[in-house]
C-alpha cells in the first residue's frame, strides 16, 4: 500500500484551499449554490459517461507509485481493473486535488455502489462538502479535463469528515438531499454500471479499501491530527481579519463554555484564572471602587461572620492590631456613642470581672474605696460622738447648769470653747491646671487673690501628692490650717472645692461640701465641661455658680441640716421626741445633784466674799486665810502670828457676811516661819515711810538669819528713835531691831546741790536746808560759818575757779537775806571734790556748797 492515509498530507495546499474557501462569502444554505452543484453533477455525469468509454488506455498504466507521471492518466477508476488499479486511481487523484484526503474520498467513491443502507448518509455528506471543495478546481486551472470528475468526488470524503466533526452542517445538507434525489440516482446508476459492468472482479478489493478508509475517518485521533493545525491557523486568520465577528460568534456561548468547563474541570479552570484574578481585582478597585464596594457590601458581613466561625484565632489576630486604634479614635470622635454602647453592660462586666478576678478588682478599687469609706466612717463616728456627748454626757448638762448658776449665758461658755464658724470664700478649681472655674467671695471681707490662691493651692496639692510616702495610694490634701483660718478642700476627679473658713468647721460642713461637689459632677461634670475647662468662665453654667454660692451662706443655712428636707422631717421629729423623754428622765435623776450644785455655788459665793474682804485689810493681806461655809456657819481657817490680827480677821469677816451667819474663828496662833521676802519688803516700806518724816534720814537692812533689822542714819529728835524701833519690831518675824543712829545731825552738816554750771539755789533746798541753818545760827549767836563752794571736774578750770566761790556767795546771800549777819559768814571756793566724794563718784556729788563751823574768836 504505497498510499497510506496516514501519510502526511501536503498541508500547504489544503491550507490554501481552506483559506480561499473561507474567503468566499457564500453560505452552505444558499440554494443558488446548490443549483450550481446540481448542474455540475449533471455535467460530471456526462463526462463520466464519456470517459467510461475509454478506460482501456489507462489499464496500461504500469506504475501507480509515481503520481506526477500519473497525472496525464485520465481515468484512474477504470485503470483499476486489477489489484493495482486502485492505487493507480489514487495516484491520479493525488496530483489533481493535492491532498490525501481527497484520495481517500476518491477511493471511497465505490462505496456508493456498496449498498443502499449507507448511501443516503454518504450522499448528504457529499453535497455538504462538495461546495467548499469545489473551488480547488479553479486554483488549478492547468488540470486536465479528467480532473473534473475528481473535483466532483472529493465531497464524498469530506462528508465523512464533516459527519464526525460538524453536526450542524449535516443537518443543513440533509434538507437538500431530497432535492438532489434524482440526480444522485442517476449518478449512482452510472457508477454502479461502471463498476459492476467493467470491473466487478475488483469489488472485493474496493470494499476492503473502503472499509479501511472508513475506519480511518471514524478514528478521531487521525482526524484531529489532521484537522487541528488547520483550525488553529483558521481561527488565527479569522480573528485577525474580523475580530468583531469572532466575538459575536463566541459571545453567546462563551459563558456557557466557561460554565461547562468549570463544571467538568474545576481545577484547570481555577489554574487558568488564578494568575489573572488579582490583577483584575486591583484594576477594578482602582477604576471603579464604588462598584466593587457595592458588589462586596451585601456579603462582606457574612464573609466576616463565616470566617469568624471557622477560624476565630486568625480573625482575632487580624483585627487585634486595629482595635485599640479604632476604639480610641471612636472615643475621641464620638464619646457619647461609646458611652451609650458600653453603659448597659458595664454593670454586668464589672460583675463578671469580680467573679473572675476578685483580687485584681479589689486592688484596682481599693485606693478609691478605701479613701471614701475611711473618710465617711470617720465623719459618722465623729457625728455620733458629738451627739452622744451633747445629749447624754454629764459634763454637757453640768456645763449648762453651771452656766445658769453663775449667771453666764451658755452661749458665752460655748463661745469660749469654740470660735464662731464663717466661710470667707469658696472656689471651684480645676484640678490639673489650677485655673479658677468659679469664684465666690464674701462681700464684707477682704477680697482674696483667687487666681494666685488657686494656683498655689494646686501647686501645694501637687507637691503633697509627689511627696507622699506611698505613691500607689492616691492621697489628697484636704485641709490647710493657718492661724484661725482654715482652707477645707473636697476633691473630685477633675476639680476640687476650696473653702476658706474661719473658726472650727461643723461636721455638717464637710458633708455639704461633698454634696455640692457631687451635684456639680453628676449634673455638669458629664460631657467634659469641667474636665476640659480651658479658662473660659462663660462656659460654666450659672447653676454651678449658684451651688457654690450656697456654700458661702452655709453656716446660717446649716444649723439643723436635717430640717431642710421634708423627707427628714419626720425622723427628726421622732428623734427629738426620744431625746426629750431622755432629757426629762435625766432631769429627774439629776435633781438632787442640781440642788447640791446650787448650794455649793452659793456657799462658794459667800466664801469668796469673805476672802475678798480679808484680802482688803492691809494687816491681813500677807496671810493666807480660808473661809468655808457650812450651814449657817462661816469658818475662818488659817494661821496668824498674834491675837490682834486674829481678832481683826474675825471682825472683817463678820462685817462682810449677811447678819444671819455666824463666824467661827478657827485661826491658829503660830509664829509662822518668817518669809524673808515679805519681811524685806515691809522693812523697805517702813524705811521709806520714815525717811519722809522731818529730820529723819535712815537706811535699813534685814538680816534673815538672825531676824534682825539694822537701822542706820540720823534722826532729828530723840523720840524718833523709839518710834522707829517700835515700828520695825511690829513686823512679824523680826526679833531684834538694832539702831545705829548718829547723834542728831546739825543743819550745817548738810550740803546744797547745784545743777551743772549754775549757782541757782533750789527753792526746796532754801526751805529745807537753809532755814534750819538760820535757826541754828540764831540759836547759837556766836557761831560763824565757813561757806565752801565746790565744782565738778567738768568744764574749764578757769570757769570752775569762778563758779565755786559764786555758789558759796549765793548761799551766803540767801542767809543774809534771812537776817543773818554777813560778817558771821565767810566765803571760799574749791575745784576739788568735797570730803567723802571720790573721783570716780558721780559728778553731781561734787556740785555742792558745804558748811564748816568756825570757832568764835572769843571762845578760843
Amino acid at each position, binding site marked *: 500500500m504505497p498510499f497510506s492515509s496516514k501519510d502526511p498530507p501536503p498541508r500547504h495546499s489544503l491550507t490554501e484551499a481552506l483559506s480561499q474557501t473561507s474567503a468566499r462569502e457564500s453560505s452552505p444554505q444558499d440554494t443558488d449554490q446548490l443549483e450550481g452543484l446540481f448542474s455540475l453533477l449533471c455535467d460530471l455525469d456526462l463526462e463520466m459517461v464519456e470517459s467510461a468509454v475509454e478506460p482501456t488506455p489507462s489499464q496500461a498504466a504500469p506504475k501507480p507509485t509515481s503520481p506526477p507521471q500519473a497525472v496525464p492518466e485520465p481515468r484512474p477508476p477504470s485503470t483499476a481493473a486489477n489489484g493495482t488499479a486502485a492505487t493507480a486511481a489514487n495516484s491520479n487523484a493525488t496530483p489533481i486535488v493535492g491532498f490525501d484526503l481527497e484520495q481517500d474520498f476518491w477511493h471511497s467513491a465505490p462505496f456508493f455502489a456498496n449498498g443502499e443502507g449507507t448511501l443516503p448518509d454518504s450522499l448528504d455528506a457529499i453535497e455538504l462538502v462538495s461546495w467548499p471543495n469545489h473551488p480547488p478546481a479553479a486554483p488549478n486551472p492547468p488540470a486536465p479535463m479528467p480532473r473534473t470528475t475528481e473535483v466532483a468526488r472529493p465531497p464524498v470524503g469530506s462528508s465523512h469528515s464533516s459527519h464526525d466533526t460538524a453536526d450542524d452542517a449535516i443537518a443543513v445538507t440533509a434538507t437538500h438531499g431530497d432535492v438532489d434525489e434524482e440526480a444522485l440516482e442517476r449518478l449512482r446508476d452510472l457508477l454502479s454500471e461502471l463498476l459492476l459492468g467493467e470491473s466487478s472482479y475488483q469489488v472485493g478489493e474496493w470494499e476492503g479499501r473502503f472499509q479501511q478508509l472508513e475506519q480511518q475517518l471514524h478514528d478521531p485521533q487521525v482526524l484531529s491530527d489532521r484537522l487541528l493545525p488547520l483550525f488553529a491557523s483558521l481561527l488565527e486568520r479569522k480573528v485577525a481579519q474580523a475580530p468583531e465577528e469572532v466575538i459575536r460568534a463566541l459571545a453567546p456561548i462563551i459563558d456557557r463554555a466557561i460554565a461547562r468547563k468549570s463544571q467538568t474541570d474545576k481545577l484547570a479552570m481555577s489554574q487558568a484564572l488564578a494568575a489573572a484574578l488579582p490583577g483584575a481585582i486591583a484594576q477594578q478597585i482602582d477604576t471603579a471602587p464604588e462598584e466593587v464596594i457595592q458588589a462586596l457590601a451585601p456579603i462582606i458581613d457574612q464573609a466576616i461572620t463565616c470566617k469568624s466561625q471557622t477560624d476565630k484565632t486568625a480573625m482575632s489576630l487580624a483585627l487585634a492590631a486595629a482595635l485599640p486604634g479604632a476604639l480610641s479614635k471612636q472615643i475621641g470622635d464620638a464619646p457619647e456613642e461609646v458611652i451609650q454602647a458600653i453603659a448597659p453592660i458595664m454593670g454586668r462586666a464589672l460583675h463578671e470581672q469580680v467573679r473572675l478576678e476578685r483580687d485584681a478588682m479589689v486592688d484596682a478599687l481599693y485606693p478609691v474605696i478605701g479613701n471614701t469609706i475611711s473618710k465617711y466612717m470617720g465623719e459618722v463616728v465623729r457625728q455620733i460622738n458629738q451627739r452622744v456627748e451633747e445629749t447624754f454626757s454629764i459634763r454637757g448638762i453640768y456645763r449648762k447648769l453651771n452656766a445658769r448658776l453663775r449667771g453666764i449665758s451658755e452661749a458665752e461658755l460655748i463661745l469660749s470653747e469654740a470660735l464662731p464658724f464663717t466661710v470667707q470664700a469658696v472656689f471651684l478649681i480645676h484640678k490639673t*491646671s489650677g485655673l479658677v472655674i468659679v469664684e465666690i467671695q464674701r462681700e464684707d471681707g477682704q477680697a482674696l487673690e483667687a487666681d494666685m490662691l488657686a494656683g498655689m493651692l494646686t*501647686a501645694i496639692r*501637687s507637691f503633697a501628692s*509627689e511627696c507622699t510616702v506611698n505613691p500607689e495610694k492616691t492621697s489628697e490634701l484636704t485641709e490647710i490650717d493657718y492661724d484661725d483660718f482654715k482652707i477645707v478642700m473636697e476633691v473630685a476627679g477633675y476639680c476640687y472645692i476650696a473653702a476658706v473658713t474661719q473658726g472650727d468647721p461643723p461636721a455638717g460642713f464637710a458633708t455639704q461640701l461633698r454634696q455640692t461637689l457631687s451635684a456639680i459632677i453628676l449634673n455638669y461634670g458629664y460631657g467634659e465641661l469641667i474636665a476640659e475647662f480651658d479658662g*473660659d*468662665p462663660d462656659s460654666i453654667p450659672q447653676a454651678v455658680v449658684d451651688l457654690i454660692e450656697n456654700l458661702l451662706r452655709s453656716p446660717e443655712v446649716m444649723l439643723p441640716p436635717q430640717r431642710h428636707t421634708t423627707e427628714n422631717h419626720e425622723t427628726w421629729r421622732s428623734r427629738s421626741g426620744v431625746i426629750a423623754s431622755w432629757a426629762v428622765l435625766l432631769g429627774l435623776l439629776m435633781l438632787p445633784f442640781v440642788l447640791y450644785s446650787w448650794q455649793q455655788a452659793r456657799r462658794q459665793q459667800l466664801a469668796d466674799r469673805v476672802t475678798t474682804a480679808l484680802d482688803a485689810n492691809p494687816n491681813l493681806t500677807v496671810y493666807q486665810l480660808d473661809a468655808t461655809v457650812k450651814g449657817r456657819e462661816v469658818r475662818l481657817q488659817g494661821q496668824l502670828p498674834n491675837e490682834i490680827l486674829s481678832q481683826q480677821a474675825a471682825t472683817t469677816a463678820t462685817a462682810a457676811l449677811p447678819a444671819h451667819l455666824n463666824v467661827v474663828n478657827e485661826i491658829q496662833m503660830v509664829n509662822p516661819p518668817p518669809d524673808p521676802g515679805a519681811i524685806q519688803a515691809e522693812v523697805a516700806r517702813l524705811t521709806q515711810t520714815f525717811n519722809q518724816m522731818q529730820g529723819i534720814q535712815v537706811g535699813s537692812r534685814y538680816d534673815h538669819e538672825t531676824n534682825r533689822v539694822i537701822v542706820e542714819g540720823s534722826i532729828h529728835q530723840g523720840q524718833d528713835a523709839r518710834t522707829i524701833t517700835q515700828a520695825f519690831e511690829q513686823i512679824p518675824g523680826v526679833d531684834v531691831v538694832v539702831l545705829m543712829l548718829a547723834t542728831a545731825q546739825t543743819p550745817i552738816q548738810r550740803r546744797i546741790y547745784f545743777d551743772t554750771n549754775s549757782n541757782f539755789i533750789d527753792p526746796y533746798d532754801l526751805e529745807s536746808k537753809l532755814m534750819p541753818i538760820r535757826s541754828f545760827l540764831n540759836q547759837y549767836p556766836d557761831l560763824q560759818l565757813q561757806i565752801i563752794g565746790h565744782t565738778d571736774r567738768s568744764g574749764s578750770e578757769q570757769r570752775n575757779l569762778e563758779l565755786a566761790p559764786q555758789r558759796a556767795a549765793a548761799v551766803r546771800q540767801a542767809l543774809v537775806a534771812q537776817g543773818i549777819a554777813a560778817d558771821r559768814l565767810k566765803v571760799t571756793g574749791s575745784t576739788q571734790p568735797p570730803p567723802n566724794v571720790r573721783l570716780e563718784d558721780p559728778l553731781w556729788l561734787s556740785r555742792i556748797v558745804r558748811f564748816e563751823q568756825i570757832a568764835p574768836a572769843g571762845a578760843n
Partner: protein
Amino acid sequence: MGILSKKLCMVGDFGVGKTSLIRRFVERQFSDRYLSTVGVKISRKTMTIADSERGTQDLKLLIWDIEGQTKFKAIAPSYLQGASGILAVADLTRQETVEHLADHIRNFLAINQHGFIAVALNKADLIDREELAQIRNLLEQPSEQVIGVYQTSAKTGESVDTIFEHLTKRIWTKGN
C-alpha cells in the same frame, strides 16, 4: 466674652533665667542677682491679644515658674498638667542647657500632647552673633507644637514680650 485664663509653665535647667524672664515680662524689671526658685512660684499677667479675624480678647496668664531641672531631678509632672503651653528656656552661654531643651519639650508633650511650646534662648545679650548662629543649628524642632525659637534677653528685654505674645496668641487661636 469674659477674660480667659490660661496656665503657662516655664521649664528649663537651673539658672537659665526662667524667673528673670517672668520678672521682665510681668514686673518690667531685671536683676543680676541669682535667686533659686524652690518649688513653684506663680505670677499673673493679663494681656490683650488682637487677631485680624477674631477681634481682640483679654487673656489672664497664670505663669508657673517651676524650679530648674537637672538630669537627676526631673520636673514634677503634675506641675505641667493642665498647662496650655510652656516656655522652654535655655542659656545660650551654656550649651548643655540647649541640648536639654528636647528633653524638656518631650516631657511636656508626654503630659499634654496638644500644648504649645515656645523656645527661648536666653541671655542673648551675652553672646555674639557668630556663636548664636552655631547654637541655633544644634536645635532640631522635634514637634509641630513648637511655635518657634526666640533669642531673648531678660536683661535688655529683647523678644521677651514677643515670645509671650506669640505663645498666648497661638494658644488662643488653637483648634479654630
